[in-house]
């Protein structure tokens, strides 16, 4: 029962940090500052939650604790779209400025890409999930190369803008997009409820899942679509940040020591919120906006990843 208590503690810490972020040093024009901070916090909680959730599900589907949805190539596609738009229309173009259109284009492209990929790969009989990941990885590298290609062609000022897009940032999120994202995520969660019960069994592996009566291909396909949509929403909202998922979900597994997905998902969402809100707090108050949150997340995440590799190495 320890994991229930731990999840509760995480929830309390997450809420406390969120309140601290919203209410810290709140003076001056409250009517202006407060709504802006609330929107930011909402964006953080949404992205953090979506990434943690998507990564947990993805790791269960693949039965692998060091894979994140980024191997499906979605972040790379996002960067390609951004760079391509700058390449064609220039950084001052309307589509770059109006974040709603950009958001819709990015999200649409990422979701359509995943659907086409899944449809294509699940068509035949050889629906091996690792084959799907391999194709995702290859396409991701392909998109990366094209991104570099466009980056070389555009002028240096525009390159700065393009590069900036590669780092997740919560400093200028659009209010309408946050509401839109909430809508999408709620719909996805409602759809997910039908499949929630299968996660614990899927974690046992394909053979056991089939033995216990899970319609494996049907469930996996739908879960992958859910993962893609959540990743796309989070990426389009604040930028590529899937690395956070690796960090958060692994910490959750180490911390809770349970296999129950209800608690793993809840706790990873809370840890994710703690990391992002705490990170953003540091960005704003200590670095005074000199850096973006993804730099901090990537630094901490990178160190943890190396630790994970060394630890696994020792246990062999």
């Amino acid at each position, binding site marked *: 029962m320890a994991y229930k208590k731990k999840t509760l503690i995480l929830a309390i810490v997450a809420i406390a940090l969120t309140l601290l972020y919203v209410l810290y040093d709140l003076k001056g024009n409250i009517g202006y500052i407060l709504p802006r901070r609330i929107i930011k916090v909402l964006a953080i909680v949404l992205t953090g939650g979506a990434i943690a959730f998507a990564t947990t599900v993805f790791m269960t589907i693949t039965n692998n604790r060091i894979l994140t949805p980024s191997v499906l190539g979605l972040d790379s596609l996002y960067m390609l779209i951004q760079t391509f738009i700058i390449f064609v229309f220039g950084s001052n173009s309307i589509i770059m400025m109006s974040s709603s259109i950009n958001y819709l284009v990015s999200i649409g492209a990422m979701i359509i890409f995943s659907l086409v990929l899944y449809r294509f790969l699940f068509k035949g*009989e050889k629906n091996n999930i690792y084959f799907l990941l391999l194709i995702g990885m290859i396409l991701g590298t392909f998109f990366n190369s094209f991104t570099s290609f466009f980056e070389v062609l555009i002028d240096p000022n525009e390159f700065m803008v393009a590069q900036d897009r590669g780092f997740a940032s919560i400093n200028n999120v659009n209010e309408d997009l946050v509401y839109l994202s909430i809508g999408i995520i709620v719909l996805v969660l409602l759809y997910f409820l039908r499949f929630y019960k299968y996660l614990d069994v899927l974690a046992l592996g394909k053979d056991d899942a089939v*033995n216990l009566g899970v319609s494996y291909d049907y469930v996996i396909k739908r879960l992958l679509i859910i993962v893609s949509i959540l990743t796309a929403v989070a990426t389009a909202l604040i930028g590529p940040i899937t690395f956070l998922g690796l960090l958060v979900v692994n910490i959750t597994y180490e911390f809770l020591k349970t296999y129950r997905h209800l608690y793993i998902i809840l706790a990873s969402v809370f840890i994710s919120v703690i990391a992002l809100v705490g990170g953003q707090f540091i960005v704003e108050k200590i670095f005074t906006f000199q850096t973006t949150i993804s730099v901090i997340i990537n630094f901490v995440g990178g160190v943890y990843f190396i630790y994970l590799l060394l630890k696994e190495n020792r246990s062999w």
Partner: protein
Amino acid sequence: MVEVKNLLKTYNQKNVVDDVSLKIEKGTMTSFIGPNGAGKSTLISIITRLIAKDSGDIQIDGQDVLKTDSNELAKKISVLKQSNSINLKLTVRELVSFGRFPYSKGKLTKEDEKKIDESLAYMELEDLENKYLDELSGGQRQRAHIAMVIAQDTEYIFLDEPLNNLDMRHSTQIMKILRRLVDELGKTILIVIHDINFASCYSDNIVALKDGKIVKQGRACDVIDACVLKELYDMDIEIQEIGDKRICVYY
């Protein structure tokens, strides 16, 4: 009754399961024997819908396996594969509880708990029920997996080399439990096994496979025969009668 007709499975133009037809009666224990690569595991996996077939027909109690709802089928047949490397932090009891998934979808009822207790008792795992799987020896872990299959409470149980890596004591223990499942609870057990003496001593029927084809199927005493085994393994195997058991001497 399990009925398989003209089953075919091809990998890279090689017929791994080649036109196999067989009938398994209810309430019997059937062993599948044969050299490595004979297609025993593939056959079991196809019958239990873990691998797709290329052609042929599989019926269990008159129902086509692929047309039956997977969850309903999970209440009728259960399968335990060779390699069960679960990388979750699970206790024995939690693993066995998974066997109830087809019935309760993760929300265990009183009846589920009772079945779990029974299967733990059946496999003599009560003392270990709160141990984590990675703390157990190979034999204990194998027993935990079999307990899960027992908790699933299906009429048909398919086991793929359940004696792998077990010593004689644990092997006989597991075979005796399987025999009891057949004799006391009326289960139908199909088992892939390498040790032909275990097959000879504990099973009712034996199916001998080689290169994807059935060499012989029938009562255990008929298949454990010097000529059949010679054809199967390409080696001379002497058969001795000890008590009422036919023992193969091939050392």
